[in-house]
């Protein structure tokens, strides 16, 4: 089975793998950053009492959450050109990842905010703090701690989701595996190496998420 596992070919392709890894890093980092912005905006709209903002935000979040990412990627990849917008595949991919993760992040932030007990907000009102002061001094400090672990969880999901960009021929880690398979027909070496690199990223992010879970989640002493 693995007796004839060919390490030489992996070393031969190592530079390409590293390029792919760097590309995956870049795509994931840019997408998670943009998704945080999109998610914060979507969440702010979602919890506002202004209907013109609230309902579009609900529609955005629910549509994204109930359709597959791959369909969203294809929607943009095949759809943008029909609107006359021509952007490179990598940008299409980043937009898709941003929109997708943005919806999930909006829900994560909302869960963090609603996890703060109503009594604390009332205490803030009673102390004469205005809306922004309550957000600044009471809600956000607690909500942020509660959102960091799930946000890191979402970034793990996003790194794995970025593999789907290989299907619109973005040269990232999975695509390198595909290239190697088609050039040399060594799928075992190619995809196990790809899996290995993803596992490395996963364990780093997982360790960070577990650490933040221990440090940041507010627990009542008992």
């Amino acid at each position, binding site marked *: 089975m693995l007796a004839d596992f060919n390490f030489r070919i992996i070393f031969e392709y190592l530079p390409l793998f590293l390029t792919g890894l760097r590309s995956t890093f870049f795509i994931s980092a840019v997408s998670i950053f943009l998704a945080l912005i999109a998610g914060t905006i979507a969440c702010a709209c979602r919890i506002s009492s202004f209907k013109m903002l609230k309902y579009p935000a609900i529609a955005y979040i629910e549509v994204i959450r109930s359709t597959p990412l791959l*369909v969203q990627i*294809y929607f943009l990849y095949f759809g943008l050109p029909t609107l006359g917008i021509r952007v490179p595949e990598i940008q299409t991919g980043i937009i898709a990842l941003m929109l997708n993760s943005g919806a999930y992040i909006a829900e994560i932030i909302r869960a963090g905010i609603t996890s703060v007990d109503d009594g604390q907000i009332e205490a803030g009102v009673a102390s004469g703090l205005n809306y922004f002061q309550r957000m600044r001094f009471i809600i956000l400090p607690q909500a942020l701690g509660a959102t960091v672990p799930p946000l890191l969880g979402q970034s793990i999901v996003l790194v794995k989701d970025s593999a789907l960009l290989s299907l619109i021929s973005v040269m990232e880690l999975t695509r390198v595996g595909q290239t190697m398979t088609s050039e040399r027909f060594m799928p075992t070496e190619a995809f196990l190496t790809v899996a290995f690199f993803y596992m490395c990223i996963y364990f780093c992010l997982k360790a960070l998420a577990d650490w933040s879970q221990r440090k940041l989640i507010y627990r009542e002493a008992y």
Partner: protein
Amino acid sequence: MMAFYFSRLVEIFPFFLKGLWMTTQIAFISLFTCTLLGFVLGILRSGKNRILKWIIGVYVSFVRGTPFVVQIFIVFFILPEWGIQLKAFPAALLAMAIMGSAFICEIVAGGINAISKGQWEAGTASGLSLIQQLRLVIIPQAMKVILPPLVGQYVLLIKDTSVVSVIGVMELTRVGWVTVVRIPEGLMVFSLVGALYFVISYPLILLSNYLERRMAI
């Protein structure tokens, strides 16, 4: 031109329904096998056997740490190298079973671990066998913790069936991909595909939200 393509799309709509049927089949079979396997693995993972726990742990980490596309490629391209030749459809089902059962295993193990030790002890004291303890005492209580994330996982699994289109299974996403070559209206074609997915998964999302509220203690 839009109107022309739209009428073409209406013409081939039955093709989409076929894809939807395929997606439903894959989803249904995978949800069933994943739940079954996931519960068995989850119970073993929350058990006492160290070696078994470690093996399942490695398996779960591998599945959670790699993208589903890569897993499909491993099943579809590497198994033949080892002498196991699978057609696209069974390969897709196998990949789904491997992926889904690992996630469900974690949910089930988490639910069982949430039950206090006293319940097990009370079961032993009442003279129940291990299977009886699980079936009559532990699982019914753990279900409260398991059910909301389980339904949420079902939604994710249904959406992940779209990825098996990469090995050529003619399900909904693949149908869209094939159609867009002939009807070059990406927005229209994939809106339709998305709408059909929405029809299956949105009710489950609502169910998951409902269960979450209902089961909250």
